């Protein structure tokens, strides 16, 4: 076992209820730098809710979330539950949505630069070095768009891009603020196979350069290829976890076996 300090992410007995329905219970797992963890499971198993809890779009009802040893969330510590402190905690994570959620009024580049520009305004030296900071932001956006292979689409609006291109812009946008952990919520579910392939290619490249990622997906073969570990969720719990070989090659539970057969 590795020590807690080596982990970039540590999730401990996370709980989430919607009304009386228990959506997550006793979720615990950890992530080491550079690891890619895929979360699989049928609809309603809590995969998306888990991702949303990590990005503080939902407030967990119990448990703890630590990033690099720092407690970002502790259900028993009211100080960590304040809305105000959430904003900066979110920056540890990036999230790529199933439905892209690009801002339609901005070009691809503007989608990438928006948050960087707004955040830069909070720097104390912003007024003094404004031009330089803004130039740096534009350069960073260009580099990110090049990374997802969309340099030639930087000035296009989302509606002028294919679904796959939109999702790649969304990936560049999620990377803009340099999150330690990049999360994907079924990033290819809204895409046809051809467009899925280009998005998956982008994700694979990010995995190859050692990005720490959590991937909620229905693409089993992709999960098998790209992940260092796979979590199988059922009824709000992690029912089984292991290496891709263990999960896909030698599933232990009947539940996982039948899930894999049907997908």
């Amino acid at each position, binding site marked *: 076992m590795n020590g807690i300090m080596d982990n970039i992410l540590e999730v401990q007995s996370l709980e989430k209820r919607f009304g009386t329905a228990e959506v997550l219970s006793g979720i615990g797992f950890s992530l080491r730098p550079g690891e890619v963890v895929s979360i699989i499971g049928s609809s309603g198993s809590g995969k998306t809710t888990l991702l949303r809890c990590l990005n503080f779009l939902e407030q967990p009802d119990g448990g703890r979330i630590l990033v690099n040893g720092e407690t970002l969330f502790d259900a028993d510590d009211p100080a960590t539950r304040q809305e105000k402190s959430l*904003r900066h905690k979110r920056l540890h994570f990036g999230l790529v949505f199933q439905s892209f*959620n690009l*801002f*339609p*009024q901005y070009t691809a580049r503007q989608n990438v630069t928006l*948050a960087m520009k707004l955040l830069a305004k909070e720097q104390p030296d912003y007024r003094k070095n404004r031009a330089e900071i803004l130039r740096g932001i534009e350069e960073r956006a260009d580099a990110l768009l090049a990374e997802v292979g969309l340099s030639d689409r930087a000035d296009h*609006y*989302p509606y002028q891009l294919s679904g796959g291109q939109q999702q790649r812009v969304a990936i560049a946008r999620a990377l*803009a603020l340099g999150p330690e952990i990049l999360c994907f919520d079924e990033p290819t579910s809204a895409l046809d196979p051809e467009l899925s392939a280009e998005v998956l290619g982008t994700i694979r490249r990010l995995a190859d350069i050692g990005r720490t990622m959590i991937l909620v997906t229905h693409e089993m073969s992709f999960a098998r290829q790209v992940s260092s570990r796979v979590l199988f969720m059922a009824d709000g719990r992690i029912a089984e976890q292991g290496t891709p070989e263990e999960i896909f090659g030698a599933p232990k539970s009947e539940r996982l076996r039948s899930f894999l057969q049907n997908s």
Partner: protein
Amino acid sequence: MTTFITVTLKLLQGFGTTILIFLVTLLCAVPLGLPIAFCSMSRFKPLRWLSRGFVWIIRGTPLMLQVIIVFYGPDLLGWNLSFPRFGAVAVAFIINYAAYFSEIYRGGIESVPRGQYEAGQVLGLKKGQIFFRITLPQVIKRILAPMSNEVITLVKDTSLARVIAVRELIMEASAFIKTQALLWPLFYSGAFYLLFCGLLTLAFGALEKKLDYIKV
């Protein structure tokens, strides 16, 4: 010919008042609708119901009656406060149109997908930044058509000001019936409204074209 010029000059005078009512109402009601919309969407129930009740009353009663109430009401209640005629018209119109605008805004804001807000949240943006940079531009795009409808209605609603003898266009035009037994100035006044609404239609068309790059 001289009658025509006299009538035209008189109507232009009334038209000036009409435009003034229009501009004052628009300038104040457009921003005022926003806080009302926020109250109507508030998670704090008493505030929400207060706001929706207010909108119900304003939309559920004639604007003409509201003008009369603002003008005569304070005096009837024995308050030591009364509005000048134009002021009463302005207050009634602003409140009335703010209520209508607030409902248009509410519809526009609620129609922006939740995912847009969340995309802003995960990027670490503040609530205000999300509203002004992400939501509002999309709302403006969405509400342009209903707003142009409402604004054009406002042009014609200004004629209600005559109920408390504010000398706007219709009032000046109908005065010729009594003073010179001329009916045609009233018909002629329609041309002024038509021209003004035509210009507004063109302006909204241009604005719509300008926002064409936003596809929501």
